[in-house]
């Protein structure tokens, strides 16, 4: 199963990447994927990072093949 992970703002900076394709077997929720992606990164408040799956905020869902997952640090628009 493949999902595309997008990194933004301070998460992209800490990870030093903006996008990657991850492959894995078995079931994985969005928040499990987040934990995995942020593991080892220097981010002060990981709880403040929200997850969007296919452009909807959602950390409960179990990921499906082809999903687009985004890791979103606190919003700063306006």
């Amino acid at each position, binding site marked *: 199963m493949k999902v595309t992970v997008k990194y933004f703002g301070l998460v992209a900076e800490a990870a030093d990447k903006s996008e990657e394709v991850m492959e894995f077997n078995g079931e994985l929720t969005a928040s499990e994927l987040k934990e995995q992606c942020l593991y080892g990164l220097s981010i002060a408040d990981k709880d403040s990072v929200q997850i969007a799956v296919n452009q909807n905020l959602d950390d409960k869902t179990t990921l499906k093949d082809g999903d687009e997952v985004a890791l979103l640090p606190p919003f*700063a*628009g*306006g």
Partner: protein
Amino acid sequence: MDKKKPKKVFVQGAIPPEKIANSVANHQSKTNIGAHSIFLGQIRADEVDGKTVTAIDYTAYEEMAEKVFHEIREAAFAKFDITCAHIYHSLGKIKVGKLCLFVFTSSAHRKIAIAATNFFVEEIKAKVPVFGKEIFEDETHQWKVNK
């Protein structure tokens, strides 16, 4: 009328003041309008630990952001009796003193227009995936967080 055509909210670079005049001028033929309410966000030279912000570099999860802007518009038109609503948000490096957000609503009545603009501003701040890197004069930076 505007309700039906979803337009792109993001613009590259600062929003020029002339854009405001043009938007207003474009509404002078809509004679059911009695009130326009406008909000403008301007980059502030905040001081943090003795260093001064010189610009904010805005990035966004653009596809999701445009979708959320659209949902906010739909919610605003459902909630308020407005005739039109326009939103523009900057992307890229916006210098201190320049405009990064332009919200413009119109209605027959003042209270509705004012309430709608307020709704847009709060919703945009809370819900749209936009990220801001505050750049200091020594080229260091910190990440902005909306309160």
